C-alpha cells in the first residue's frame, strides 16, 4: 500500500506510522447539516483513545466512518494503513473481521440466545469444533459476568446486561481494534467498574487498540491514554485526560464543568424561544 508507483520523491515516503486509525480533513454532511468540517485525528496503536463531546456532535458518526459503514463526503480515513475509500466490499469485510464494535444500542440478534449471539462471529467465519466454540464463548461471558445468562434470549435481558453481552460478542474474536460506543451507559457501579477493568485488561495484556466513546469523564480518566474532545465539527481539544481536565480553555471548562453556556450550545439550533412559545418579541 505504501509503495505507490506514482510516488512523489519530493515528499517523504509514508512511513509505518504508529497510528492505527488516521483521519484527515474529514467533512460530513448528514441531512443538510454539517457534522464534520476538517476533522483530523489519530488513534495510536496499542493505546486507549477516548472520544468525548456533547450529544449529537457526531461521535457515533465518526465511528461509522472509521468502520466503513458511512462514507465521508471529503477527506481520507486510513485504518491499519488502508485507505477505506479504496477498499472493495470484500476487503472491507476482511478488515472488519479484525475490528470489534460495541454498538450504542447493543444490537443483539433477537433470534438467538445470549450464547449464540456471542458465538455468531465464530460460527460465521471459523470452522471450530463445538467444544472450542463453547469454551471461547463461556470465557467471554465470564469476563462480563454473564456466564450464567448464556441460555437467556435478548428480550429477557436488562439494558445493562444486553450491553455486556454485546461487549462479549465484540471481543470474541480478539480484534486488533476495539471500538466502544458508550460502553458504560446503563451499567451499575459494579458492572461499570468491571467493564472498565476489562477494557484496560484487553488493552494491557493483548495490546488491543481501543477507541472509547463515553460521557463519563471519571471513567474515561481511569481508562484512557488520550482524549479527543470533539465539538463544532472539529477536534476542539485533545490531551492526556488529567492534563485536559486541568486545562483552562472555554471548551474544556464548559464540557467538564457541565455549564450550559459556553462555546458548546446546550440547545439544538432552534427558533427564538419566546417566538416559539407564542410571545411577541417585546412582550404584551
Amino acid at each position, binding site marked *: 500500500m505504501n509503495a505507490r508507483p506514482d510516488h512523489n520523491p519530493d515528499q517523504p515516503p509514508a512511513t509505518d506510522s504508529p497510528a492505527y486509525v488516521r483521519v484527515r480533513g474529514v467533512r460530513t454532511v448528514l441531512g443538510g447539516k454539517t457534522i464534520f468540517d476538517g476533522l483530523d485525528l489519530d488513534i495510536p496503536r496499542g493505546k486507549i483513545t477516548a472520544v468525548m463531546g456533547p450529544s449529537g456532535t457526531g461521535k457515533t458518526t465518526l465511528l461509522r466512518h472509521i*468502520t466503513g*459503514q458511512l462514507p465521508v463526503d471529503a477527506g481520507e480515513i486510513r485504518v491499519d494503513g488502508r485507505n477505506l475509500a479504496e477498499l472493495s466490499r470484500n476487503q472491507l*469485510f*476482511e478488515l*472488519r*473481521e479484525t*475490528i470489534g*464494535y460495541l*454498538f450504542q*444500542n447493543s*444490537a*443483539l*440478534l*433477537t433470534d438467538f440466545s445470549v450464547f449464540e449471539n456471542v458465538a*455468531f*462471529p465464530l460460527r*460465521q*467465519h471459523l470452522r471450530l469444533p463445538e467444544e472450542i466454540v463453547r469454551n471461547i464463548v463461556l470465557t467471554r461471558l465470564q469476563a462480563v459476568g454473564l456466564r450464567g445468562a448464556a441460555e437467556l434470549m435478548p428480550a429477557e435481558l436488562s439494558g445493562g446486561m444486553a450491553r455486556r453481552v454485546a461487549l462479549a*460478542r465484540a471481543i470474541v474474536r480478539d480484534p486488533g481494534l476495539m471500538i466502544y460506543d458508550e460502553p458504560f451507559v446503563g451499567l451499575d457501579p459494579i458492572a461499570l467498574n468491571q467493564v472498565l477493568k476489562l477494557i484496560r485488561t484487553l488493552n494491557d495484556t493483548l495490546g488491543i487498540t481501543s477507541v472509547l466513546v463515553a460521557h463519563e469523564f471519571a471513567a474515561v480518566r481511569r481508562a484512557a491514554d488520550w482524549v479527543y474532545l470533539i465539538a463544532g465539527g472539529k477536534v476542539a481539544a485533545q490531551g492526556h485526560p488529567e492534563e485536559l481536565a486541568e486545562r483552562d480553555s472555554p471548551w474544556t471548562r464548559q464540557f467538564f464543568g457541565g455549564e450550559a453556556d459556553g462555546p458548546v450550545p446546550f440547545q439544538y439550533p432552534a427558533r427564538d424561544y419566546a417566538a416559539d412559545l407564542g410571545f411577541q418579541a417585546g412582550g404584551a
Partner: protein
Amino acid sequence: MSQARKQLAIGDALAQVGAAGLFLFSILAAIPGSLRHVRETLRQIWFVGAMSLVIIMTCGLFVGMVLSLQLYYTLAKFGGTAALGTVVALSLFRELGPVVTALLFAGRAGTSITAEIGLMRATDQLSAMEMMAVDPLAYVVAPRFIAGVVAMPLLACIFNALGILGAHAVGVSWLGLDNGTFWGNMTANVEVWSDLVNGVWKSAAFGAVVALIATFQGYTTPPTSEGVAYATTRTVVSSSITVLALDFVMTAFLM
C-alpha cells in the same frame, strides 16, 4: 390531490419500482454467498412454508367447495355436470391455486418477513452483522427470497389438492355426482405439462415477486415503528397488485 402531488406520488411509485429492481440484482448477486448459509435457507423455507400451511389448507378447502357449488350450478344449465371435476381442476391448477396462494402468502409470510427485516434494521441488527463481516443480503435477505420461490409452488400444490378434495366433497358427497365420473373426466382432460406445470411456474414467479417486495420493503424501511408498520402494509398492497398484473401477463404468454 393536486396535480403536482399526483405527479409526485407517481414519480415516487416509479422510483420504488426501479429501486426494487436494483434490489433484485443485489439479491441475485448475494445468492452465491448465501450458499454458505444453507441451514439458514432451509430454516426459512420450513418457517415460511409452515407458517402459511394452515391458512393455505383451510382456504384451499373452502375455495374448492365454493367453486364446486358455483360451477355445478353453471354446468347444470348446459347439462354438463359430468365435467365438474375437469373444470374445477383446471380453474385451480391454472389460475386460482397460484393466485390465491400468492395473495394469502403475501398476507401471511410476506408481512412477517417485512416486519422481521424492518425491525432488524430499526434495532441495528443489520449493521451489527455488517460489522461482524457478515453480509445481511446473503445471510438475511437471500435465504428469505429463496424460501419464497421454493415454498410458493409447494403451497400452491397443497392448495390445489385441498381444493379438489373440497370440490369432491361438495360435488360427489353432497350434490350426488358420480364418483367415477368426477375423477375420470378430470384425469382424461387435465394435462400434466400444459396445465399443472404451468401453474407451478406461475406460482414460483409469484413467490419471487412476493418475497422480493417483502424483503425490499423490510430492508429499506425507515428505522422507526411507524416506518415498519407502513412497510408491512405496503408489502400487502404492492404484492397483491403486482401478482394480479403479472398473472395477466403470464397467462397471456403461457396460454
